[in-house]
């Protein structure tokens, strides 16, 4: 049974939507195509989460190519995993009743609604609603900072209890034209880690549930998955195969490969790349995928295209400094990558000075727990990602082209709250929805997901070098650079 609120959410012409001009424009654009109906599926809609920063861009627009761009997309449904997991873990109505404990009335959503949209209900529940056993919904309790109910009300979309419901908008058939999936770690109700330090994010599970609906209905829609495909390579591979079999566009990845670069440079298409060194910061399953993917986005342009990775090794601690002394990666490339950083720490924090961190010997003093992700490509290209927590705070790369030229740049990651890098990604996602074609190679995400898993396996096996025959992944990069330039 629909509550009035759910009905208003379901109705494409909900009064709250009429009150919001950008959506009205996109819904009734001058002779424009009807908007792409989007289902948003994610794990947490808290302020600053990836889901909030990216999904909001499809609600309120985003800065893109010199304007405040309003994508021709209409969010029609939202599923937030944390709400449901939290609600399922809590005692249900029956359990509460038999123990004599009554559930507290729903507290107002945080943050409180400032201006309820005008409408028959004035943004409040209709009077008859409060007697319904399921209303207000039990998921609305307990999560501080969850914005999903407030967004659903403001923008008039359906807040759903499961993924099939989100795809069908409560009806019997798929009622969306595209899917946005952003699964990330939740603060209040976290997903567990495995012994390899991987967060067991259910990206594959989300995909699988969508695919079940696609298969049942013999109708598939474009699918964007944020960051890696899955923590497990086999599942990631299955996701690609399934998308191919059902013939729907699948795009996956993070913002770093598509954000602005300082300077605006790329590996020349078809150039022979000898070696690349990337520097960044992050944890064992946090930002290292983004950094590896950004590096891959540059290297895939090399001569012969991508032919895969034959072995990886992850080094940690003093082994990193020993390997650096032994020339495991080019010191010149490391200096070059660090020359692009705007965030050297140590003495720069102390008195503002510029530093060349490599020759000065400052790195080992600043970085307590360094990590090196060493990649050997099938074609002989060598690449290293150095995670230098304590020495810098940004992401920079240097690659040596055969003949001696070095290409180096910083992947520009504008700070919170705006996090402008995800506007660059939103532009790509929107382009995929409108054109029904993936805008970046999904095999890049597959290879990078596999590389990251293999590196964590290397770490788990006491930093052994691991051969990765399964990562002989071939693909051709787009000739035109895919990062933000205009």
């Amino acid at each position, binding site marked *: 049974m629909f509550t009035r609120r759910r009905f208003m959410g379901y109705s494409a012409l909900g009064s709250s939507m009429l009150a919001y001009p950008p959506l009205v424009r996109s819904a009734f654009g001058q002779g424009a195509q009807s908007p792409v109906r989007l289902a948003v599926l994610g794990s947490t809609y808290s302020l600053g989460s990836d889901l909030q920063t990216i999904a909001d861009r499809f609600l*309120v627009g985003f800065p893109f190519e010199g304007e405040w761009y309003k994508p021709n997309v209409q969010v029609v449904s939202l599923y937030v995993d944390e709400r449901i997991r939290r609600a399922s873990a809590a005692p249900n109505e029956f359990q509460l009743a038999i123990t004599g404990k009554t559930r507290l009335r729903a507290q107002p959503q945080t943050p409180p609604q400032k201006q309820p949209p005008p409408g028959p209900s004035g943004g409040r529940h209709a009077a008859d609603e409060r007697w319904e056993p399921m209303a207000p919904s039990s998921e609305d309790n307990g999560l501080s900072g969850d914005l999903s109910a407030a967004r659903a009300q403001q923008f008039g979309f359906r807040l759903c209890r499961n993924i099939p419901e989100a795809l069908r908008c409560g009806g019997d058939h798929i009622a969306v034209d595209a899917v946005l999936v952003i699964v990330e770690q939740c603060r209040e109700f976290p997903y567990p880690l495995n012994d390899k330090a991987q967060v067991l994010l259910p990206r594959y599970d989300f995909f699988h549930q969508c695919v079940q609906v696609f298969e049942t209905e013999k109708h598939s829609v474009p699918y964007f998955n944020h960051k890696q495909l899955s923590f497990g390579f086999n599942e990631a591979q299955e996701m690609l195969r399934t998308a191919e079999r059902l013939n729907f566009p699948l795009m996956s990845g993070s913002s770093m490969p598509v954000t602005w670069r300082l300077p*605006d440079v790329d590996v020349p298409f078809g150039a022979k790349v000898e070696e690349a060194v990337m520097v960044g910061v992050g944890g064992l399953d946090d930002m290292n995928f983004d950094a590896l993917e950004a590096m891959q986005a540059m290297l895939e342009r090399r001569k012969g295209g991508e032919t895969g990775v034959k072995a990886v090794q992850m080094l940690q601690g003093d082994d990193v400094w020993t390997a650096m002394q032994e020339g495991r990666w080019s010191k010149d490339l490391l*200096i070059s990558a660090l020359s692009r950083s705007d965030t050297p720490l140590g003495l720069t924090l102390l008195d503002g000075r510029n530093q060349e961190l490599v020759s000065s010997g400052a790195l080992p003093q600043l970085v307590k727990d360094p990590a090196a992700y060493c990649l050997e490509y099938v074609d002989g290209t060598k690449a290293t990602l150095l995670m230098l927590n304590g020495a810098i705070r940004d992401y920079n790369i240097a690659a040596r082209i055969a003949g001696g030229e070095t290409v180096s740049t910083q992947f520009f990651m504008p700070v919170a709250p705006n996090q402008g890098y995800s506007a660059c990604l939103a532009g790509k996602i929107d382009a995929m929805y409108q054109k029904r074609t993936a805008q970046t190679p999904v095999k890049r995400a597959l290879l990078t997901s596999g590389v990251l898993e293999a590196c964590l396996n290397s770490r788990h096996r006491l930093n052994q070098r691991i051969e990765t025959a399964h990562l002989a992944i071939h693909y051709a990069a787009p000739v035109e650079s895919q990062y933000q330039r205009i």
Partner: protein
Amino acid sequence: MAPDAQLSKKPRLAAVVTSYKKYLHPQHVVDRLLDGYGWDGTYHRPQMEVASLYVDQRGDGDLFQERADRHPEMKICPTIEEALTLGSSKLAVDGVVVVAEHGVYPLSENGIMMRPHYEFFEKITNVYRSSGRAVPYFNDKELSWRWDWSKKMVDVSHELGFPFQSGSSLAVTWRIPSVEFPLGATVKEAVSVGYGGMTSYDFHGLETIQCMVERRKGGESGVEWIQTYTKEAFWNAYQNGVWSQALVQAALSRSSTLRPADPTFTNIFPTIEQMKAIVPDPVAYQYKHRDGLLSTMILMNGMVRDFTFAANIDGHSKPFSTQMYLPMPDGRTTLASFFSPLVNNAEQMFLTGKATYPIERNLLTSGLLIEGVESYKQGKRLETPNLAAVRYQPNPKSTFWRT
């Protein structure tokens, strides 16, 4: 007097600064000459030597002694004359670096800090005159807080014939996207949107506009009048389209630091009503160039923390826009890397004996700041005959950071 052409050996520089503490302009500029900086994909060490340093104001947090200890070739001098002559009777350096931003000086009656750019200039050029030799001169930010002094500085540089380069890093830093104003384009209106307040960051906003529009058809033609808008007059002017709302929107769409007016969002475009709530002290200097171009320098402190530019260029279907990116060490970075292209342009001048951009740009922006503050004080539009006479051609080559 001809500029010194003998630059076969490493040029020796005298640095003349107001105060040398962490994250003050003198530290950013002189440190780069001493310790080097990341440039063009490597760690660059300038092929010149800072031979002397004069510091006008000393106190807690001074860093110059630590720098001198690590760079013994740099002599701390008690006077500007000594810094230039290195204790001899004549000019003994090949270039002068003046950084007179920061430090604490009294305010003028219009509220502009009376920083000693001109006083330093006079002492330096006195040594030039008495030595019968003039060397390239780099001056950070504006020329002087007084128009007649600013004008005189430029006149003397022409009289003595030395390369004189001055201005803000906004003109030379990264642009996002990395675009240049098309040389010879026709432009009807330009805006910059920045932050800070009158008599400080207004200069950066003015330089943001000028480094772009000076490349328009005919070059810079001079400025006829200026009018300053603040408080309610600003919002009325904004709402009435005294400057283009579309250009402000285009500029703000280049910002990386747009404060969400609704705190439950992270990146949302504000309505004018919301802007009013988060920008208590908006400032606009609007000025008309002689060839008809209308420029508006806007400061919306509280809403953004960066500088953006937008202009209507003939033949472009939508506004031409970019961000002049300042990697600001206010929590976003630790190094104010926008000083790197400023110092690099100065190095080029010291090595080639030629300024990389015209000093008249800086004369105009220094004058616009002075007149903008005066217009605020008088509360009306001011005719600017002084600025109408500042006409110049740009360097056709781009000098901003893009490698």
